């Protein structure tokens, strides 16, 4: 049993108010929709709209900002946004050469963004979609585009945004996004179910002492249920699965951007432990790590657990990831 400081009926409102309160740059709300825009990325030919269900804070609304998304749209907790709201944010970002909808690959999101994209096109707005599908646990590598999107959303979004900022054409930005998406793989593990914001009860069954490798961001089942395991063996086991997946798809990995992401109530202490063991394992595999981020980027309410994301880097993606960016969800750090 867990009480939340907000209830289902005011949670998303509260997120928007909070973002506006804490943001050093202006974030505009779109009507009464759960949508926001940042208007400062003026050099872009392609504008970027991201979104998804709530409960994943700082995603998705927190991803707008300089060098990041131009617009974001949230649904209720763990529910994709509705098409009217997606369309409203789309229209608020006009005029532009074209819009890219970037979101995690879930039934609900595909249905709603897809519907909104059609309605936008009917209004003469050019829209293309990038569906992030980084979760290696959710489908075999020969069906990679059916995978779910998890924390990989952020690196892909960051690359796309930076490509748009350097003035790339709409189709170049889109192509870059497909590349970044194809080069991004993640795997998560759940240590304890999130508590429902409605009832305070666990949202799925995961007995104490068991873990689920490959658990999705909403508690979707993963690939392996096993007994509790400390970081020393858990992290190498997870990375092996990710590395094997790169290999099986013919992507040789010698340099990667790394994200260690907390799912909600895993402590920063533990995330650092995961980071340390991730470094050791990648080092053993001869993989360079010029960009390594540890924190809470894509959560699942108060689920305990974490995910590890690797984006294969070439010089282009490394430069794009290093380009300046600021948002509540993700900012570039300068050494």
């Amino acid at each position, binding site marked *: 049993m867990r009480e939340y400081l907000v209830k*289902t009926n005011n949670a998303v409102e509260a997120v928007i108010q909070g973002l506006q309160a804490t943001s050093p740059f202006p974030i505009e709300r779109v009507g009464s929709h759960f949508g926001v825009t940042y208007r400062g990325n003026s050099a872009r030919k392609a504008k970027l709209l991201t979104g998804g*269900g709530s409960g994943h804070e700082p995603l998705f609304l927190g991803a707008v900002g300089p060098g990041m998304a131009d617009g974001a749209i949230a*649904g*209720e*907790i*763990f*529910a*994709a*946004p*509705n*098409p*009217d*709201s997606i369309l409203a944010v789309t229209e608020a970002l006009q005029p532009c050469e074209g819009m890219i909808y970037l979101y995690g690959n*879930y*039934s*609900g999101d595909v*249905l*709603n963004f*897809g*519907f909104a994209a059609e309605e936008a096109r009917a209004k003469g707005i050019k829209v293309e979609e990038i569906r992030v599908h980084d979760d290696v*646990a*959710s*489908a075999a590598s020969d069906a990679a585009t059916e995978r779910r999107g998890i924390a990989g959303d952020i690196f892909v979004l960051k690359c796309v945004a930076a490509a748009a900022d350097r003035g790339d054409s709409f189709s170049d930005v889109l192509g870059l996004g497909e590349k970044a998406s194809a080069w991004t793989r993640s795997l998560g593990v759940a240590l304890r179910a999130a508590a*429902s914001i*409605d*009832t305070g009860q666990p*949202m*799925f*069954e995961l007995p104490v002492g068991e873990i689920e490798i*490959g658990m*999705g961001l*909403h*508690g*979707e*089942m*993963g*690939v392996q249920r096993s007994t509790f395991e400390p970081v020393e063996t858990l992290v190498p086991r997870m990375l092996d699965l990710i590395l094997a997946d790169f290999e099986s798809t013919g992507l040789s990995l010698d340099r990667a951007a790394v994200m260690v992401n907390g799912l909600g109530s895993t402590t920063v202490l533990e995330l650092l432990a995961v980071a340390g063991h991730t470094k050791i394992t990648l080092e053993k595999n001869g993989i360079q790590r010029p960009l390594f981020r540890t924190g809470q980027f894509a959560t699942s309410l108060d689920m305990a657990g974490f995910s590890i994301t690797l984006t294969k880097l070439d010089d282009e993606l490394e430069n794009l990831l290093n380009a300046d960016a600021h948002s509540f969800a993700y900012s570039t750090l300068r050494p």
Partner: protein
Amino acid sequence: MEKNLESLNPSQVKDLLAKTLSSWIAERDRLNELDRALGDGDHGTTISRGAQAAIDSLQTGNFSSVNQVFAAVGRAMMTSMGGASGMLFGLFFRSAEKIPVSEVLDLGTLNALFDRGLEDLRARTKAQPGDKTMFDALIPALTSLRESQGDLIAALDQAASSATEGAQKSAELIPKFGRAKTLGERARGTPDPGATSVAIFFTGLAANAKALSPQS
């Protein structure tokens, strides 16, 4: 003695739908429980939110055609629910806008309306019967409705039992779509929440239509 119910006017349809939608609200916890086993535990919350928004929109709306009544429900659900089910249930009802306007609801109109809804859903998801989704209740229900020879009440009764049977049978299926799709064998034993919602809807529709029926 019972008189057969042959058709309803928009205002009757509005009452019928409002009553029927409220059973989703009543079944909220059970639907959440099913989704807790197969998905993210919110199907009951989501569909009740949709039902409430639809009821609100029925109460404030003025409807001159049956199509408008169904479309109002669909729009309210699509907008208020979001998620997979918001789009699917929403579109199913909202498609009523796309068929010829009718001022009464009889079995023929109902079939036309739901068939168009199904067609629009099929354009958006590749799920097939057997894939453990709402289709496992919806398709049997619509088939019954289409094949029924009796009056509206009898047809709805038939549809309700087909939907209920379909939802029950979905328990034994392995999911191929939606959040449940990675569960595999672990999904056996629990009926699909979306299919269960479809069964609740048709069961309510039949029962509430009976209550409307001019009885002795």
